[in-house]
C-alpha cells in the first residue's frame, strides 16, 4: 500500500510543499510539547509521591483539646498496643524548627532508634547509620534541601539549634539523604528522640503523635472506630487520606497549568488556522486542477487526510520526544519550580520517567481533531465547487 502511486504522490506533495508544512509542524510540535510536558511532570510527581507515601505508617493518632492540636500522652501507647491487628506502634516527636534569620523552617523528626519503626522510609534510613558513632555525639540525618541550606550558611559539619530556654545545642550532621527522597524528605531532619525533646522543650510523658500499622487493610475502619471509642479528643489520620490530599494538591497545580496551556493552545490553533487560510489560494487552485484531471472529491479528501495525518504524527512524535527530554533528561527547568512552589527550601526532585499511554492518546486526539477539522472542512468545500471555479 505504501509504495502505491497514491502514497508516492502524497510524499512527493509533502516534500515539494515543505515550506508550507514546516511552519505547521513547528507550531504543532510546540503544542504537543507543552501538553506532554505537563502530563509527564504531573504523572511522574504523583508516582514518586505514591512510592514515598507507601512507606508511611498506616495510621497516625494525635491529641486534640477543643479541636486544638496538643501534645499526645505517651500512656496512650499501652491502650493502642492492646487493640487486635495493630503493629509497629511508634511514639513520634517532631515539629517545625524556624531558622528566623532567613525565615526558613525544617521538620525535626525525633526517632527512637532502637524501636520497631512504623515508617519504612525511616527504618531503611536508620539501618544505614552506624549507631555507636551516631550516639557518641549529638547527631542528625538531614534531607538534601536542609544539607544544602546549611552548607550555604557555613554549617557544613554541625548546626547550633536555639533552645526554648535561650541556650544553644550543637548537633553534628552525620548523614545527608539522597535527592531521590526529596519530594518527602527535602526539608527533614532526623535525630534521636531525646535530642528532639530537648530542642522542642517537651516532657518525657508526651509525644507529638503515635503512628502504627494495620497489616489487614479491611480492618482499618474498625480500628479507627475503636480509637474514637477509647479516646475522647482524638485526631486520626490514615494513609488513604494522606495520599488523597497529596494527589489533590498536585492535580490542582496540574489543572492550573492546564488552563494556562489551553489559552496558549487556543492561540496556536488560531495561528495554525490562519496559516492554512493563507495557503488556501494556492491549495484551492491545485485542488481544482486535480479535480479537472479526473480526481474525485473522495480522492481529494483522501489525499488531504493522509497529508494531515502524516504531519500530525510527525509533530506528535517530535513533541513527545522533546517533552520527554525536557522533563526527564533536563529535569524540567522552570516548570518544576512552579509545581514544587510553596516549599520553604529549594527542592530538586528527581523525576522518575513515567508515560501514561492513555493520556498521550487523549493529547493526540485533543490536538488532532481540531487540526483535521480545520484542514478537511475547507478542503471539502473547495473540492465540491466546480473545478473551473476552484482553478480561477
Amino acid at each position, binding site marked *: 500500500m505504501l509504495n502505491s502511486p497514491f502514497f508516492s504522490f502524497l510524499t512527493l506533495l509533502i516534500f*515539494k510543499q515543505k515550506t508550507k508544512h514546516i511552519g505547521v509542524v513547528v507550531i504543532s510540535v510546540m503544542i504537543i510539547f507543552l501538553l506532554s510536558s505537563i502530563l509527564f511532570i504531573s504523572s511522574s510527581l504523583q508516582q514518586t509521591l505514591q512510592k514515598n507515601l507507601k512507606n508511611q505508617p498506616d495510621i497516625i493518632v494525635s491529641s486534640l483539646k477543643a479541636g486544638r492540636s496538643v501534645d499526645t500522652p505517651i500512656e496512650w501507647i499501652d491502650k493502642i498496643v492492646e487493640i487486635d491487628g495493630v503493629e509497629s506502634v511508634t511514639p513520634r516527636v517532631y515539629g517545625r524548627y524556624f531558622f528566623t534569620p532567613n525565615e526558613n523552617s525544617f521538620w525535626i523528626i525525633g526517632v527512637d532508634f532502637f524501636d520497631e519503626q512504623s515508617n519504612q522510609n525511616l527504618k531503611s534510613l536508620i539501618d544505614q547509620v552506624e549507631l555507636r558513632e551516631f550516639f557518641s555525639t549529638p547527631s542528625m540525618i538531614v534531607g538534601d534541601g536542609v544539607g544544602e541550606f546549611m552548607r550555604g550558611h557555613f554549617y557544613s559539619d554541625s548546626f547550633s539549634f536555639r533552645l526554648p530556654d535561650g541556650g544553644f545545642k550543637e548537633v553534628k550532621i552525620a548523614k545527608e539523604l539522597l535527592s531521590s527522597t526529596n519530594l518527602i524528605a527535602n526539608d527533614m531532619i532526623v535525630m534521636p528522640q531525646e535530642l528532639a525533646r530537648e530542642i522542642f522543650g517537651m516532657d518525657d510523658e508526651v509525644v507529638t503523635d503515635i503512628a502504627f500499622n494495620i497489616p489487614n487493610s479491611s480492618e482499618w475502619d474498625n480500628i479507627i472506630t475503636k480509637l474514637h471509642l477509647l479516646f475522647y479528643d482524638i485526631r486520626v489520620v490514615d494513609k488513604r487520606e494522606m495520599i488523597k490530599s497529596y494527589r489533590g494538591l498536585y492535580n490542582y497545580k496540574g489543572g492550573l497549568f492546564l488552563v494556562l496551556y489551553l489559552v496558549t493552545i487556543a492561540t496556536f490553533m488560531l495561528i495554525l488556522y490562519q496559516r492554512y487560510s493563507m495557503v488556501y489560494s494556492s491549495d484551492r487552485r*491545485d485542488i481544482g486542477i*486535480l479535480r*479537472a484531471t479526473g480526481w*474525485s472529491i473522495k480522492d481529494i479528501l483522501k489525499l488531504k487526510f493522509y497529508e494531515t495525518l502524516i504531519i500530525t504524527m510527525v509533530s506528535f512524535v517530535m513533541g513527545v520526544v522533546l517533552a520527554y527530554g525536557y522533563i526527564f533528561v533536563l529535569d524540567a527547568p522552570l516548570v518544576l519550580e512552579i509545581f514544587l512552589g510553596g516549599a520553604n527550601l529549594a527542592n530538586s526532585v528527581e523525576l522518575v520517567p513515567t508515560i501514561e499511554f492513555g493520556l498521550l492518546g487523549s493529547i493526540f486526539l485533543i490536538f488532532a481533531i481540531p487540526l483535521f477539522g480545520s484542514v478537511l472542512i475547507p478542503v471539502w468545500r473547495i473540492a465540491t465547487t466546480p473545478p*473551473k471555479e476552484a482553478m480561477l
Partner: protein
Amino acid sequence: MIEIEALYKIFYEQSSNPFYALKDINLTIAKGEAVVISGVSGSGKSTLLSIIASLDRPSSGRVIVDGEPISKLPDIHASAYRARSIGFIFQHFNLIESLSVEENVIAPLINSRLDMTTIYSMVKRSMEVANISHKASQSISELSGGERQRCAIARALVNNPNIIICDEPTANLDRENSILFIDILSRLKAEGKSIIIATHDPLFDSLPFESRVIEMVDGEIV
C-alpha cells in the same frame, strides 16, 4: 460520438434577470472529428467545453458521449469519465507550480489503479508526443509559455483519452509555438482522437487537417 441535445446553461436562474450562457445547443461530433468553435469572448465557448468535459453541469438538456449521458453524473462517475475519456488543455495551462513536468503529467493516473511501471511508461510516451521529455524533471516555474503548453498537452494525453478539448490553447503562445501546437493536434487527429477547440485565433481558420468550424454568438450556435 458526442451528442448534445437542447443544452442550456443559465446563470442567476432564480433572479429576475437570468443570464443565458448557452441557449438551445444541439450538436453532434463524430468519433475522430475535429471541431473548431469560434466566437468572441463571452460567446459561451468555454462553458460548452466545460459541460462536455463534465467540469460543469448544464441547467437543462443532455450531453451523451458514446451512448452514455454524462451531464448529470454524480461526482464519482463524472470524475471517472474525465479520467478515462477527456484530455483538457486550458488557456492558462493550469499546472501545479510546486511540481515538476513529469509529476504534473503523472497526476491524472494516480488513482487509476495501474502499477508504477505502467504509469511511468505512459508518462514517458505522453511527454515524447508533446515533445517535453527533455524538461521532465524541471519545475513548472522554470518553463517558458510554449513549454508549459506542451506539459499541459502531455498531461491531457497521458490517460490516452478519446476526446481532446482545448480552450483557447494558443492565447498565451507566440506564433512559432502555436504552429507547433497545431502540428501536435494533427498527429492526434491522425490517431483518431476527437478534437474540440474553442478559439478566436485566425491560425485555426486553415488547419492542416480536416475540421468543422462552428460559430457561436451570445450562447447560440449560428
